[in-house]
């Protein structure tokens, strides 16, 4: 994303003009635009005109509109952002107060006007416009019969393609050709997916991960096919392929892939790897000294009041809430941790580690010193519905297994 213009006043209101260049910038934009802001951009509007004879004709007219945002929708697979709102500025084609949906387009600048630019939003603008290119990776996790082709950027993990083929297991009097045929079919589909969804120009490294020998077989198959079909792009990019062990072919295996030391150097500056490590640190602290690892809003805020937080892990989905008080609350938390010389890691919800943090209420903290845990009885977790079972749970007397 390129920063075209930035104008923030003393009272924190102001506007920023940005130019998105790749799909990831749309994700950053999604995290910036909130309900109540104003968004200005060129867009297409269907304008109906009536000429003298009375015939009505409609055509699409490109115009610059300023819209008072009412709702924002982000499509993960397509990385497109749609902002719906009412027109807030005089325009030749659109009445004031008329509804319009702006679909933000790449390579066209847009301006966000906010009443209050908080530190988190400004940080995000800085991050989005950072010139240093982060590594883009693609990973294929697979097991017999199931594979996911994913693209990992610094703030997003997208599953581009999922391949599932029913592979017969061994049976008595078994024809091993059936198994081979099914695996060939599976590899063929993965190969097609690889060619279709992976852009070798952008991707720095292609990781093949699987338990057992599947990845080796697929690697051989891939390049045999490439030579047969004379697929120059693939053959040139052969050195980018890395083979790594994972425990399964499910999406969760991506986490293990990111932690693998073999590719740590390739991932060195990726946010994804840092996030995974931060979460792993939190869990190991939870295991070794539970009174130094808190999660949940109330707990973390209480810890913060005592200036106890050393590392704050917070998910960006909390900043996307529509209620301004909630956003302010979290921004205040982040600011105060920074003031007390703590570190703040904002997790992207599109990475597997971010998803896991979301499940864990979205905010967690590693403390400097142990603190007594507050009483749980009056805690109402943000993301977890309270258990409606009351005292009805009954426990059988014998142990589980």
């Amino acid at each position, binding site marked *: 994303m390129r920063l075209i213009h930035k104008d923030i006043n003393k009272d924190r209101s102001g506007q920023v003009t940005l130019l998105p260049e790749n799909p990831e910038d749309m994700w950053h934009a999604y995290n910036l635009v909130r309900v109540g802001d104003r968004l200005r951009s060129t867009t297409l509007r269907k304008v109906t005109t009536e000429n003298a004879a009375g015939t009505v004709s409609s055509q699409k007219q490109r115009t610059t509109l300023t819209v008072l945002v009412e709702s924002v929708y982000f499509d993960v697979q397509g990385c497109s952002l749609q902002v719906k709102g009412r027109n807030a500025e005089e325009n030749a084609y659109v009445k004031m107060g008329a509804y319009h949906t702006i679909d933000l387009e790449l390579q066209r600048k847009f301006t966000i006007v906010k009443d209050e630019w908080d530190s988190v939003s400004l940080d995000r603008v800085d991050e989005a416009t950072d010139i240093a290119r982060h590594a883009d990776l693609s990973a294929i996790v697979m097991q017999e019969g199931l594979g996911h082709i994913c693209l990992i950027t610094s703030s997003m993990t997208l599953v581009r393609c999922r391949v599932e083929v029913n592979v017969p297991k061994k049976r008595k009097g*078994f024809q091993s050709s059936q198994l081979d045929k099914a695996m060939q079919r599976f590899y063929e589909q993965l190969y097609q997916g690889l060619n279709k969804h992976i852009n070798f120009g952008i991707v720095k490294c292609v990781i093949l991960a699987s338990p057992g020998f599947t990845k080796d077989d697929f690697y051989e198959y891939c390049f045999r096919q490439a030579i047969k079909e004379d697929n120059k792009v693939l053959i040139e990019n052969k050195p980018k392929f890395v083979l790594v062990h994972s425990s*399964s072919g499910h999406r969760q295996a991506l986490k293990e892939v990111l932690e693998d030391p073999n590719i740590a150097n390739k991932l060195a500056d990726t946010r994804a790897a840092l996030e995974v490590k931060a979460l792993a640190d939190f869990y190991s602290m*939870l295991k070794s000294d539970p009174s130094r690892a808190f999660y949940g809003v109330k707990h973390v805020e209480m810890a913060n009041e005592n200036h106890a937080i050393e590392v704050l892990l917070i998910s960006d989905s909390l900043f996307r809430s529509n209620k301004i008080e909630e956003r302010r609350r979290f921004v205040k938390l982040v600011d105060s941790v920074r003031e007390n010389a703590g570190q703040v890691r904002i997790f992207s919800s599109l990475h597997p580690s971010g998803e896991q943090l979301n499940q864990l209420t979205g905010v967690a903290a590693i403390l400097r010193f142990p603190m007594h845990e507050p009483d749980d009885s009056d805690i109402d977790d943000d993301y977890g519905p309270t*258990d409606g079972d009351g005292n009805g*749970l009954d426990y*059988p007397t014998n*142990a*589980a*297994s």
Partner: protein
Amino acid sequence: IMSRRRVKNIALNDDEDYDVDESFGHSFEDEPAFGVSPATANAYLFVRDKDTGGRITQPPLPDVKEEPPQSAPAPQMARLHVATAGPAHSVKVGFAGAVAVSPSVPSPSPRLLSTKQQQQQQAASSASNSRSASPAPPRKNGADPDSAGGDSTEASAASAAAAAEAYKRYCAGLGDRAMINLVIIGHVDAGKSTLIGHLLYLLGAVSQKVIHRYEQECRKAGKPSFQFAWVLDESEEERQRGVTMDVARSQLSTRHRLVNLLDCPGHKDFIPNMISGAMAADAALLVINATRGEFESGFDQGGQTREHALLARGLGIGQLVVAINKMDTAKWSETRFAEIRDKLGVYLKSVGFKPDCVSYCPVSGLEGANLNKPLSAELCPWYASGPTLVDLIDRLTPPARSVDKPLRFYISEVSTGGRGAGGSGAVACFGNALSGYAAPGHKLLLLPANQRVAVKAVTSSGQDASAASGSAIFAGDSGTISVSGGGVDPAHFGPGSVLSSVTTPCPCTNRLRAKLLLLNVSQPVTKGYQAIFHQQAVSVPVTIIRLLAQINKSTGQLERRHPRYILSNCCAEVELQLDRPLCLDVYTNSRELGKFMLRDRGVTVAAGTVVALRPTDSSQPDL
């Protein structure tokens, strides 16, 4: 007028909040299944029962004799009635294949029939009572021509007398031998495949010519001494790499037992396959490598000896025969045998195997010593009169088979066409019968796809031995059921589907409450923990969405409500959400469907049992 798809989040904020009326007038499209084709939605959406206000109740398992014979005309008319009952429903029937069971006609929903209700209604049966009797077929052309005949066949066949008769004949046919499923487990390179291969050869199941041929082939391939293992490792890759990768099945008969053998892979990466094999087993044969150094590495924390034993116990296997293999390399030393036996004994006791259910014997798989012929005194004086491996297998007690419970046939493999399928249009399902019994002509229900099918042919592992079984499959057997029926679509079948009786269908959901026993976890388990849920032959990603309570492992008393996290070796009650619906059942109803394992990062994290089922939640998390 069909309403447009409204975004409606089914608030699963739990039980007390449920309004019974919420389930009424739910348009099928209201289910928040964005962008899901009707066929998929048909397969995966779970429908709530209006009578129970959204809860799943376990219908009381009927005694087989209680099912009254269904008169042929009533069901047929009833079906037609259902097809036209109510404007909303009739519109939906128009969708080809889009009719899951619409909630507006609740009790025909096959999964949630309360059989008592159904029986009462059948007793009062008037043709106009369209909501009684059989479930609405999922497709409009479901009034299949052979339905009338088929129903009465099922009705009469399902009566208790016939079931008991058939089972008696079957047992008589087996001779005085009982059937038992034995799984072979152990660390990689312990010699499992070789041991079993040699045993099969000695008992005559494999001819000498074959072994001779294998011997030549494997010497050529550079792997001498693998000829016995090649009996079971039949695929090219397994032979080339010298490892077992998937579970191999075979059968052998001893004096008192008919044994179904399941040879499992020992590698860490292939444990999911081993789990699917072990789920079908009643007893386990643990093979240990006695060679100095090998036993130690197998028994270490990273080795599979421990993990396999733990998994076996966690999957409910109570009897264990430990074969201490490769004794020839240990020179048949008694001290070595005793050392291994004692170390293992301590560990197995801590895992939960009762000492009198575990037996040990020294063998050599490659040489064939002590397999079915006792050891000679010169070779091994201290064990000369001890029982051979076959003797120990003979002494295993088979568990009680629940033949009178409703049919549950768990599918682990599907193939279309071919000889096994009994003709075109039929799908051959290979799997295990967990309870009940099935014979050709029966009408069954395929879940979670919710399709009615008819059985065309049955082959089972017990059939070969019992000539009088008359082509039926009973609880405890593994075999193939070929099914066909109006609009059977092979895409709906797959590992994990269950063929169940129509009247008492198997419950199916993606949200459940379970009791977990945590094993060694590297991180504490909190809300949002993701793992892989292994049940029978399938594995799906799962998330722990709530920690309900921490329970004392031995007494079962409540220790802490709503814990923040759970550590290793604790027992807890949690709520789980699976990525897709599976056929599950509460542990007390069905042991096989109610137990599962959780694995993460290649390590088994927890063993669990299902305590209660919740309605399917198909809402997607918001970004």
